[in-house]
């Protein structure tokens, strides 16, 4: 028993290196340098903000190559958080064009002078200059200014004060409008608690603000009642087209044209607003005003009462027109998203915005399109949510949990129910059947919950990208968190694994660095196992020849530094320099990404194939070598080699050759450094061996090595074996590679070949994809018909076009009511110092 115990221990020690300790170090080192490659990439350097990409961890590089779900924030990530007034329609005439960066219509100015609709134009402009909550910079003007800075102003300026921070987003729309007016010469420059003053193309006009009827998501509109310098009382109202149009006086003549224009704006991804106004008589106003004051001082149901009273006055409006505001997307967002979709990545947008806003953004960055089945979920209670989810899931049928040309938009409230136990599975099934999922009005906590849910239930890598503090939760929850070094502070960046300057850099991060890191790391892992198995299994074969005594075939120090010197460089070369095609090609053909995404380079089958390959090599190496030396006489001087170490050193040399050349065989590209790694490793063994054979007895180590190099190198058998045995071992691999490359090419290999020959790749990638494309269209038609078989799209919750006539991004029920807010400011009074 003692003997068995010792034998077991002996072999345990003998084979402990089959799972190499060096693997950990090699992998860590490779990942560490890969992370530097990410930092060094000049294509991911944002020159605007002077931020290079930054890998804050080196542990996740390979996961970047396998991402299947991206969870993205909207504001600041997809959009720039900058609104720009682009087009407007006044009395049925469209001004401005979608193509130019800013609105500046000569025509509008001209028509203001002499066109028949000049009164409407004037009202329109006045409305935009007065009906808002923007505050001009606190400054006393002595003459009419033409240049005014607004708080909540352009992004380069310092952050607004504390109160305004809360309203920062809310103001952006209005800010865009006011800024546009400024460019037209209608400068709003002063606000006092009960008035606004504007410079209307050189004339100072002061408007008394009588009432502000606040925005809310139910009302979908905002109104002000003002007294004009000409002592008229007017109600200016702006809001969603649906609410404005139903409040118009009968047979308004411009409804149709304006409607068309609205459609037009919405289709080009603009946020739209409808404007209307109404002149009030003094009596009318006084009666209403009393009611309003009562309502607003009521103790119970104040909000309802106020809304009710407001509703009474907001009627019989005259339609002025509509505006189109662009919520500016980050650079190349829609291109990037399209690429990500092509790579088979599902994109979830988690935003705090309202559904309508989110959908419009979805359309403008091409996440939603008419080539998709767009589903919405907006249910007010658990049962409805459950029912609706179940129904959708059933309608998907077989294609549930597969890739469908479908999208889902879900409301935050509904999401809350959907995440509860009875609905969770259905929601998940439905959501992962869609290419795009947009969750609106979600809290930061919900964002994290959604990510958590998907991460737990899908066997795929998830990535969250965001720029603000509200994204920290989801960035931490996802496998990979990417922070955008944005203007919203550094919390997101601090919590993330990778930071980039712009959303568009994500594509290079995934398609190039992710894929490369993944493929390289797979090779490093497989190769590290391979080289150790190849060497150490030899001890097992030798055990058959030494009575299972546990005698090692090689000298102990040569074994010890096998992973440290002789075979350390080839895996590094594989892990850092290997690339099958260049970055540009990989960016151009996102389909390549699917290979690594589906983990085709590392799975159990491949792992065991490599292990068997290693065992096969060790068999060839050991048995051919030992057979070759069986006659013991390998010198013409008749002396015998003696010593298992002679066999050991001879095999070891062959092993170093085979293992290093195997790395070369697995390399897709041989750079100069690869050559150095491979041939240098082989050379290092020869040098080491030569020196090590002379240290005894000068240094008290390795007496059994003394003279080894001399006798090994002087034997012709050794050199003939060196030519024969490594080639024999690698022959099978070589033939396998030939056959695989000739008859079972992977997409990656085909792309590589074409690239090497400088051929056009598009036909190739297309040819691989053609069978998919028509099927997608068919699938879409089929899906649509299934979903609308019994009911209309609206009933089922299918969005068939972008929303329009709704562009309020205001926060309702804000901390400070709008009415109160605008009455807090008096820009004609100097700010107290220190504020």
């Amino acid at each position, binding site marked *: 028993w003692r003997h068995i115990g010792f034998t077991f221990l002996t072999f345990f020690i003998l084979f402990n290196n089959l799972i190499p300790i060096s693997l950990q170090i090699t992998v860590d080192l490779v990942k560490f340098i890969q992370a530097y490659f990410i930092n060094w990439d000049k294509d991911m350097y944002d020159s605007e903000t002077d931020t290079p990409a930054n890998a804050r961890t080196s542990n996740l590089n390979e996961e970047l190559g396998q991402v299947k779900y991206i969870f993205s924030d909207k504001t600041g990530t997809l959009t720039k958080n900058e609104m720009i007034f682009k087009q407007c329609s006044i009395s049925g005439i469209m001004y401005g064009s979608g193509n130019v960066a800013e609105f500046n219509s000569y025509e509008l100015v001209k028509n203001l002078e002499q066109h028949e609709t000049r009164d409407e134009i004037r009202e329109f402009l006045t409305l935009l200059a007065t009906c808002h909550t923007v505050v001009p910079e606190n400054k006393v003007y002595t003459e009419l200014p033409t240049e005014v800075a607004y708080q909540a102003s352009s992004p380069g300026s310092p952050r607004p004060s504390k109160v305004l921070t809360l309203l920062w987003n809310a103001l952006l729309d209005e800010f865009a409008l006011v800024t546009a007016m400024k460019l037209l010469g209608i400068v709003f420059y002063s606000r006092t608690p009960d008035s606004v003053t504007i410079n209307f193309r050189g004339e100072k006009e002061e408007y008394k603000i009588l009432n502000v009827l606040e925005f809310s998501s139910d009302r979908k509109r905002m109104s002000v009642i003002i007294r004009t310098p000409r002592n008229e009382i007017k109600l200016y109202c702006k809001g969603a087209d649906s609410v404005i149009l139903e409040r118009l006086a009968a047979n308004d003549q411009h409804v149709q044209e304006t409607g068309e224009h609205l459609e037009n704006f919405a289709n080009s991804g603009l946020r739209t607003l409808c404007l209307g106004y109404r002149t009030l008589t003094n009596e009318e106003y006084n009666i209403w005003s009393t009611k309003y004051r009562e309502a607003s001082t009521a103790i119970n149901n104040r909000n309802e009462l106020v809304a009710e009273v407001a509703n009474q006055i907001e009627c019989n409006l005259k339609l002025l027109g509509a505006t189109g505001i662009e919520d500016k997307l980050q650079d190349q967002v829609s291109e990037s998203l399209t690429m990500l979709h092509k790579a088979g990545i599902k994109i979830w947008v988690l935003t705090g915005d309202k559904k309508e806003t989110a959908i419009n953004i979805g359309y403008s960055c091409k996440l939603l399109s008419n080539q998709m089945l767009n589903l919405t979920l907006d249910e007010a209670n658990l049962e409805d949510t459950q029912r609706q989810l179940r129904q959708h899931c059933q309608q998907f049928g077989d294609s549930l949990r597969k890739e469908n040309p479908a999208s889902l938009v879900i409301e935050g409230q509904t999401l809350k129910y959907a995440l509860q136990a009875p609905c969770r599975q259905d929601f998940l099934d439905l959501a992962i059947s869609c290419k795009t999922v947009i969750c609106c009005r979600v809290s930061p906590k919900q964002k994290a919950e959604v990510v958590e849910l998907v991460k737990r239930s899908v066997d795929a890598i998830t990535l969250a990208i965001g720029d603000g503090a509200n994204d920290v939760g989801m960035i931490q929850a996802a496998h990979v968190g990417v922070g955008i070094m944005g203007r919203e502070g550094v919390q997101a960046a601090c919590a993330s694994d990778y930071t980039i300057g712009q959303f568009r850099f994500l594509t290079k991060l995934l398609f190039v660095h992710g894929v490369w890191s993944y493929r390289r790391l797979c090779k490093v892992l497989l190769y590290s196992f391979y080289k150790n198995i190849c060497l150490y299994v030899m001890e097992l074969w030798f055990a058959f020849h030494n009575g299972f005594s546990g005698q090692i075939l090689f000298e102990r120090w040569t074994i010890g530094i096998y992973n440290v010197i002789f075979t350390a460089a080839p895996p590094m070369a594989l892990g850092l320099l290997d690339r099958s095609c260049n970055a540009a090609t990989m960016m151009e053909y996102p389909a390549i990404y699917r290979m690594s995404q589906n983990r085709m380079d590392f799975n159990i089958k491949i792992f065991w194939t490599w292990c068997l390959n290693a065992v096969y090599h060790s068999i060839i190496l050991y048995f051919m070598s030992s057979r070759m030396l069986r006659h013991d*006489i390998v010198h013409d001087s008749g002396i015998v080699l003696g010593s*298992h170490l002679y066999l050991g050193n001879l095999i070891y040399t062959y092993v170093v050759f085979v293992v290093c050349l195997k790395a070369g065989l697995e390399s897709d590209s041989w750079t100069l450094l690869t050559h150095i790694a491979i041939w240098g490793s082989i050379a290092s063994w020869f040098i080491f061996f030569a020196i090590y054979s002379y240290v005894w007895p000068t240094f008290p180590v390795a007496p059994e090595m003394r003279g080894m190099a001399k006798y090994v190198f002087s034997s012709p058998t050794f050199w003939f074996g060196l030519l024969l045995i490594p080639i024999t071992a690698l022959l099978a691999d070589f033939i396998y590679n030939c056959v695989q490359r000739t008859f079972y090419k992977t997409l990656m290999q085909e792309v590589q070949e074409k690239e090497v020959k400088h051929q056009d790749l598009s036909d190739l990638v297309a040819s691989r994809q053609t069978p998919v494309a028509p099927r997608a269209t068919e699938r879409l038609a089929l899906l649509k018909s299934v979903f609308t078989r019994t009911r209309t799209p609206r009933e089922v919750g299918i969005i068939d076009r972008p929303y329009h006539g709704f562009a309020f991004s205001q926060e309702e029920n804000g901390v400070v009511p709008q009415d109160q807010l605008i009455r807090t400011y008096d820009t004609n009074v100097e700010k107290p110092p220190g504020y």
Partner: protein
Amino acid sequence: MSTPAENEADNEHQKSKKPADTAFKQQRLPAWQPIITANTALPVFLAIGLIFIPIGIVLVVTSERVLEFDLDYTDTNCMSLNVSNTTCADVLAQANYTGASCTCQKSFTLDKDFEGDVYFYYGLVNYYQNHRRYVRSRDDNQLLGKKDAVSSDCQPFQKSVNGTDITPCGAIANSKFNDSLVLSMNGNISVPLLRTGIAWSTDKAVKFKNPDNPQNWFATNPRPPNWQQDAWHLDTNLTDDNNGYQNEDFIVWMRTAAMPTFRKLYRKLSLTESTTFQNGLPKGTYVLTITYNYPVTSFSGRKQFIISTTSWMGGKNPFLGWAYITVGIICMITFVVFLVLHKTWKTDDPLAYQMRSMQMNQRTAAGYN
């Protein structure tokens, strides 16, 4: 206060955040991308085949020209001269391996002249000289001639009963092969044999050194239990430097064999001592006189006496040549198979593809004309 110059320096510093545009950092190092397909690999297979087959033939011929004679004298080939009808192996067994000696003679005929240098080997089969504990059981410092206490690696042959170090210590030394093999031609002309020049020169020159005053040292220290005389008397001819640790038979034995079947160089033919043997070992009848001291039957071992010439490659070694020929043939077969595939599998051939597209272009161009 920061001066404008400092600001500029700051700007410069900020600019430096932009990553450097070098081929290494941008991962654009120029690379050779070998694409191994059936077509591109064709010349490789052909080349390997064409190189390996001739090498193999040369090696096989070389090996065939080496002459080798083996004689297994473990049992029936070595009948005791003293006890009739008993093998020497049995004589040793009956004496319970307590130092009994047995002599036998075996005659054999060489059909060919063994020309040039002729080497005599003893071979052992099923002898695990590569066993881990056996290999360990020596002290290389002792063999360097140092008189320090020996290493415990030598256990259980480290110290004698009275506690002094055994010289040389360890299992390897204790089990030294001690048969003596004497060859004579036609029963009366003794074949002159060299006892030196049979070990690795490095071993003889560096690894094995006698201690000072060796005769006295070996006489006063205990010898290994299985030895019949001390290390200083391994070679009866005391004139040459072949005794003590520097005895070449001992050195050869101490270089433990790699495999359980092995041979060790025993003697070389002396070409200078006698005119009969100046060209090697002529064909004829020889008698081998064996002093059979070394028991192997207890562990099913075998003992051999081997006579061999050498080529420039060493001893007889048909394996290497045939391995070359086999691998060469495999490569040629692969070459043929891939060539056939290459001829028939036109569609995937990039060259054919290019040709086709060029023809297409020409046709369209012709159409325009």
